[in-house]
């Protein structure tokens, strides 16, 4: 490795490439590729139909451009739509059969699968490029009737559930990238919590992009039946490459009566170098539907990576008395761009939503909050509280807030607060004059700024999130 690469490696410690033999489909997408993906995954016919319909619609669309981000047009025929380590071809039955090189990759990423297998507390599904390499704790979860497996496995083993719920929250024609994902999605996780079950451990998926020139199109579906609850965590990294890689995922959450789903993300895809070269385009559709009465869906995201982040985890509050929450920290540095926020759509009666968004922009980055609160005519007594704060570190960065309100019911109570602050030299000097160096001072200020969001994360992930932000800030302040 040359010096420049070695240096960059220090900045983004997940930037290594795993040397495994990879099977890739040829570049480009057409109906044959869609069929081949479905075949490789031995999917039932209805899924192939689902994919093809989405693909045909997608072909007629043009990419959207309304977000406050800039990037050259993506050549969708210059991407591999399927990549998998060769060793995964004959589906390993347990972790013991998984290629040790893959297991070592997840060790280096801080997600040791074998160890996690023995640890109580968190079950992990690890996705490497287009396939899941292993899911831990499946046995104990199965005893309670909880299904937690890769999406491909679910399509084979639980087709009736997939057929019933897939695409019901994010229909394939929702938007350009949703259609593309619906056509070519590779792997992801499926979670089903049956009636009355409180999932005793956190479920988590770890996504890793390894192969070059490859898009990742994962698909996650979480269903919590009446009275069920689950906490789910997602983490992601990718090697550093000079090219931009597309990640276009869909996450759908469905909560029936009295169910609750908490979905947390710590996103650290490679964000490109200080000149804006390379990095992941993170274009993701995440949406949950509070289908049942008194159901609750809560999104927490810590977005610290990706060259471009373009996502709005949303909640459709259909059930009466349902609750939607969105807690977000988005940190951008170097030349990263983020346009992120949420949509809260109030449909049922007495629904309430909370939005807490903290944007931190450093260096020459651009960070925008975009959020919609919509109250439909039948949504009596809807309540929303939104707080959107931006913090600027340095002088070349940009922070924007785009709040949209569509209120069609007089009984709604909507509160919105927004602040923009800059870490002032006087604050820094004050903290330094008490013995904190500039990194410690900034991390104290930033952690203070983000604490309302961090406290909603499961404990070990909040520790990780704090460390992640500190690492990113070191580069920007240092």
């Amino acid at each position: 490795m040359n010096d420049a690469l070695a240096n960059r490696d220090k900045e983004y410690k997940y930037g290594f490439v795993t040397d495994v033999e990879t099977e890739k489909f040829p570049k480009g997408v057409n109906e044959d590729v869609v069929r081949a993906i479905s075949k490789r995954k031995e999917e039932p016919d209805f899924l192939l139909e689902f994919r093809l319909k989405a693909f045909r619609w997608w072909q007629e669309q043009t990419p959207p451009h309304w977000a406050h981000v800039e990037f050259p047009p993506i050549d969708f025929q210059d991407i591999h739509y399927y990549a998998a380590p060769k060793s995964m071809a004959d589906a390993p039955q347990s972790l013991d059969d998984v290629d040790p090189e893959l297991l070592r990759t997840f060790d280096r990423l801080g997600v040791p699968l074998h160890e996690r297998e023995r640890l109580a507390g968190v079950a992990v599904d690890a996705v490497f490029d287009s396939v899941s390499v292993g899911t831990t704790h499946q046995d104990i979860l199965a005893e309670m009737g909880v299904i937690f497996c890769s999406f491909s496995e679910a399509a084979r083993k639980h087709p009736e559930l997939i057929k019933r719920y897939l695409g019901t929250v994010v229909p394939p024609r929702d938007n350009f990238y949703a259609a593309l994902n619906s056509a070519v999605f590779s792997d992801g996780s499926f979670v089903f919590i049956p009636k009355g079950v409180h999932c005793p451990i956190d479920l988590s998926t770890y996504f890793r992009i390894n192969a070059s020139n490859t898009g990742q199109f994962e698909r996650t579906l979480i269903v919590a039946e009446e009275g069920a609850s689950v906490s789910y965590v997602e983490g992601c990294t990718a090697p550093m490459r000079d090219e931009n890689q597309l990640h276009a995922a869909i996450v759908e959450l469905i909560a029936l009566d009295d169910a609750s789903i908490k979905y947390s993300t710590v996103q650290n895809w490679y964000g490109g170098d200080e000149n804006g070269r390379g990095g992941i385009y993170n274009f993701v559709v995440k949406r949950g539907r509070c289908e049942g009465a008194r159901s609750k869906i809560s999104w927490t995201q810590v977005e610290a990576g990706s060259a471009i982040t373009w996502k709005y985890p949303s909640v459709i509050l259909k059930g009466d008395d349902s609750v939607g929450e969105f807690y977000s920290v988005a940190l951008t540095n170097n030349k990263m761009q983020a346009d992120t926020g949420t949509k809260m759509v109030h449909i049922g009666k007495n629904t309430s939503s909370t939005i807490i968004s903290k944007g931190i922009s450093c260096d020459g980055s651009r960070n925008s909050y975009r959020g919609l609160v919509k109250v439909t005519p039948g949504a009596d007594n809807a309540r929303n509280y939104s707080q959107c704060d931006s913090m600027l570190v340095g002088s070349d960065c940009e922070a924007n807030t785009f709040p949209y309100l569509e209120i069609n019911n007089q009984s709604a109570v909507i509160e919105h607060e927004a602040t923009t602050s800059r870490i002032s030299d006087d604050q820094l000097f004050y903290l330094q004059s008490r013995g904190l160096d500039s990194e410690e001072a900034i991390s104290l200020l930033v952690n203070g700024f983000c604490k309302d969001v961090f406290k909603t994360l499961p404990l070990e992930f909040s520790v990780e999130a704090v460390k992640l932000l500190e690492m990113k800030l070191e580069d920007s302040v240092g």
Partner: protein
Amino acid sequence: MLKIRELKARVVDGPEILKGINLDVNAGEIHAVMGPNGSGKSTLSRVLAGHPDYEVTGGAVTFEINREAQDLLAMEAHERARAGMFLAFQYPVEVPGVSNTVFLRAAFNAICRAQGVPPVDAFDFRDLLTEKLALIGMDDSYLERPVNLDFSGGEKKRNEILQMAILAPRLAILDETDSGLDVDSLRIVSEGVKQLSTPHNATLMITHYQRMLQYITPDFVHVLMDGQIVKSGDHTLAEAVETRGYDWVKDAA
């Protein structure tokens, strides 16, 4: 402990404010610095603490660390703090989002680490806080509030002294800690500062009035005018300044 020689400084790209300061401070001493508005008292304190807005244009300052005189001006602000220097600000800064406790513990542990002392855990630190709060008559409702945010003027001043009590500096520079305090607060804070003073540390108090000096008798009083120390003496000089004014000092100098 502290030796200032012919110190000259200005705001970066601005006019010279300090025009040749000479001052020696030894362990166990309490010094008071008085002077008219705009004479350069706060500037002196900020230059000593390492504020980046100021540029030293001449002179030298040494600070004794482990019995060796070190070039203070070569050190960064946080290094000076870790070496035992403390500045109580004339206008304490608000730090939203960061609670007093979190801030104090981070600072305390940063200094401990630098001095090779093991950091304390949250429980032991709490005990230390309780003890020091009592010393300066604050109740613990301030601990969970963001640092100085929406504190009254007097509360901010007290909070500075709480920090001083926790961080236990060898050299404390108090910039007009007495202004903004009501009579009772002034007495309590002054008694606190007095108790914190030992043969091993030193205090440099910047003040306009005799008031605080009635509780804490300074060993030396200096009068700073137009960027220079024009007169030094014992505590009686403070009384003379208060009754006769600075014109008298100028004439006498």
